[in-house]
């Protein structure tokens, strides 16, 4: 299977658990935000993402959207600004 290069940026509790702001990953070309999160959840003990949102390249997107080469992915816990 073909591999694609992506970047994941971490914020808030995910940054604390991953102990990094971002990382470059090579993943299978069929990877979605959902399957990526499942993999990272196992790696870093991330919380369940039921209430999370996800963005690809600075746009909110769906969890089953296939990732492309060079995509930047951000997983977002419920926001708490203000």
């Amino acid at each position, binding site marked *: 299977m073909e591999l694609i290069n992506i970047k994941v940026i971490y*914020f808030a*509790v995910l940054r*604390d658990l991953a102990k990094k702001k971002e990382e470059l990953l090579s993943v299978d070309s069929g990877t979605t935000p959902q399957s990526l999160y499942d993999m990272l959840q196992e790696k870093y003990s991330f919380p369940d993402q039921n*209430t999370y949102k996800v963005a690809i390249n*600075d*746009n909110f997107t769906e969890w089953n959207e296939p990732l492309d080469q060079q995509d930047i992915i951000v997983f977002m816990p419920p*926001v*708490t*600004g*203000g």
Partner: protein
Amino acid sequence: MNHFIISEDEINIVEFNKQFKNPNAGAISSFQGIVRNNNLGKDVLRLEYQSYDRLAEKEGGNIINEALETFDIKSAYCTHRTGTLEIGDIAVVVIVLAGHRDDSFKACRYIIDEVKLRVPIWKKEIYQNGDSGWLKGAG
């Protein structure tokens, strides 16, 4: 000029106010979110805000535009701090200029409510007792 701004710099409410003059505006409603010394029964020492800046400014801009379309207002602005904030610091400020007060109040309320729901910013509380934690949010 983007009317929703994420900034690490201290919000100077005076300078912020000065920028917005409009001889047609009879009503200015504003809201300031301030760092409190307590939350949910715990003594708060300071806060740390993180923001996904690019999406935050985009989504914040959407909210401002929605307010301009929905209410009879002249203009609206919002700035949100990131980084470390001390007790009494302004975390977020909204200002709305309108011809009349009803729409200025409604638009100001709309903007702060939507910002708190939709804009990707996260708050960590550092407590007096040394503990700290990211707030869980409404989700």
